[in-house]
């Protein structure tokens, strides 16, 4: 169990590729932190700098108050689980889990005890003498987790550990991982590109874009008050609708493409003439009656999901794509129009140029 302090962390790869810059975050003991962002945004790079697999270019990393920038991975008291499992193919499951402990010079009875405990937790007892290739993907990943657990590290690092598994197994292992975190009470840092995974696992999410942190917060912080348009777009499925336009003279209307005008129920927190993007989540659009903002959706196709129906289309009379998520089963013909409304409380306003939140 440990606290982590990351101060203005940066990484420049040879060839002047800046993968990560100015990352600042304080991680509390026992927190489950998820690093999320699109592919190539530098998530793995941060994790690997924490692990010590990649040298830190700028900034400081403290684990439990100790600066560990220059420590070898084996001396940082961390354990890592990789996307492709990275099990030693020629060793049995037991040997895979033992290897690090043997290198540490732990006494045999202690090693045996830890392996017994971990394999019970992960339901791996009957596979201890098998080789990795005789296991399924899910079992292999559990072995990789077992290898991490037996080391009893201060910090667990996961780099997209579930990405190679099928959807059902992913959901199942996600639950197991959450339970494991609860049980061990250790600090977890988990990398994924999947926002659903991030939302369901994290105590706090660090959302990244192009090597920089966009926002750090609880899943609900990110969902309810995304700090930037990027975050608003990334979190939530189906993605948030954006309507771009110019704020009118009275600051109570939005001119779209100069032709269509949307009337707002309240004054907008932006100066007249400002270019803004108004975001509304598909699940927050609903009955038009009496709502602050009224829009009309021209249907192009419908996704029937059973519990919900997602209707995709355009803002009537324009090309702005728009989607709405309706409860239950709805039948909508392509080409028909639906009148929708949204309360101001659910409207997110962003500066078009900078992407910063305005309200």
């Amino acid at each position, binding site marked *: 169990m440990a606290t982590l302090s990351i101060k203005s962390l940066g990484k420049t790869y040879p060839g002047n590729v800046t993968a990560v810059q100015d990352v600042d975050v304080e991680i509390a003991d026992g927190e489950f932190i998820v690093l999320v962002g699109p592919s190539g945004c530098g998530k793995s790079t941060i994790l690997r700098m924490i692990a010590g697999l990649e040298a830190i270019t700028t900034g400081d990393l403290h684990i439990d108050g100790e600066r560990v920038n220059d420590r070898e991975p084996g001396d940082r008291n961390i354990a890592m689980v*990789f996307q*492709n499992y*990275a099990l*030693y193919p*020629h060793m049995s499951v037991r040997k895979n889990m033992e290897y690090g402990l043997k*290198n540490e010079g732990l006494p045999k009875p202690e090693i045996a005890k830890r392996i017994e405990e971990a394999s019970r937790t992960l339901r791996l007892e009957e596979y201890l003498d098998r080789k990795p*290739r005789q296991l399924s993907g899910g079992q292999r990943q559990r072995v990789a987790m077992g290898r991490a657990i037996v080391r009893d590290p201060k910090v667990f690092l996961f780099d997209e550990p579930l990405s190679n598994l099928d959807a059902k197994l992913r959901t199942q292992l996600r639950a197991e991982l959450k339970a494991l975190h609860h049980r061990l009470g250790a600090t977890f840092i988990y990398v994924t590109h999947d926002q659903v995974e991030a939302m369901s696992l994290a105590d706090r999410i660090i959302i990244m874009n192009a090597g920089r942190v966009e926002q750090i917060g609880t899943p609900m912080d990110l969902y309810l008050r995304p700090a930037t348009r990027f975050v608003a777009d990334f979190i939530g499925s189906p993605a948030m609708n954006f309507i771009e336009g110019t704020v009118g003279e009275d600051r109570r209307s939005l001119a779209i493409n100069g032709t269509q005008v949307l009337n707002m129920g309240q004054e907008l927190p932006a100066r007249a003439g400002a270019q803004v993007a108004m975001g509304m989540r598909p699940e927050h659009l609903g009955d038009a009656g009496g709502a602050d903002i009224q829009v009309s959706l021209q249907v192009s196709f419908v996704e029937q999901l059973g519990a919900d129906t997602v209707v995709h289309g355009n803002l009537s009379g324009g090309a702005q794509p728009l989607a709405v998520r309706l409860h239950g089963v709805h039948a909508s013909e392509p080409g028909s129009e639906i009148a929708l409304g949204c309360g101001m409380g659910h409207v997110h306003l962003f500066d078009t140029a900078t992407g910063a939140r305005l309200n």
Partner: protein
Amino acid sequence: MVENRPFLTFLTHAVLIIGVIFLCFPVWMALVASTHGPEALSRSPIPLWFGDRAWENYSQLLAGGLPEAGGVPIGRMMFNSAIMALVITFGKIAISLISAYAIVYFRFPFRMGFFWMIFITLMLPVEVRILPTFDVVTKLGMLNSYVGLTIPLIASATATFLFRQFFLTIPDELVEAARIDRAGPLRFFWDILLPMSRTNIAALFIILFIFGWNQYLWPLLVTTDESLYTVVMGIQRMVNAGEALPVWHYIMGTAVLALIPPVLVVVAMQKLFVKGLVESEK
């Protein structure tokens, strides 16, 4: 293209059988000739079936020291060949494993330069560099010794290259997992890289053992002492044994005996090789 037509099956089998007959005929002839007396082999229709002197020929050969055959006991020559082949094989495998390890896993100045230097030597077979090598060996006083016989043949670009290519296929994550598991460079090499390379090592062992066993030109150059003669040299000397007629029954017998160790190595290693293939990942 895999087709399943009776005619094609017949044709492919016919081609294969003809090929096998073609390849096996000389071996068959050697086996047959080693069981006849000297007269039978100098007459015009050479016998194609076994004679009755197998026991006699082989016991004389193994008893050793036949003057017609150069006088060196065959056991001695087989022993020399075995030493030479084994030292070359183990030496080549060890050196190339270590150099491939250095080239793939360590960042040092001129790393690629060293790689290309090793790679370029692939283009120079023993025969091309034999004079300078001989000169060096002479100056180091290694003539007429096992050291001189084996050391110059140990460096191997081919094996280094093969191990390099194999190491490059090992995922980086595995190396990183080992670093987190506190495996230093030596432990990683010994506990992970070496066991993972065992199928490659087995395959190379076969190839290199045969390469070493069949060395002819180099032992001929560096040994003048009869006690260091190898069996391949012995066969050659028997063929050129002065004015007397070549003793074909002994020569062929020696050739058959010389075939045995490489065959044993292939048989023994093939099991390991196939087992390794089946056991290898995924």
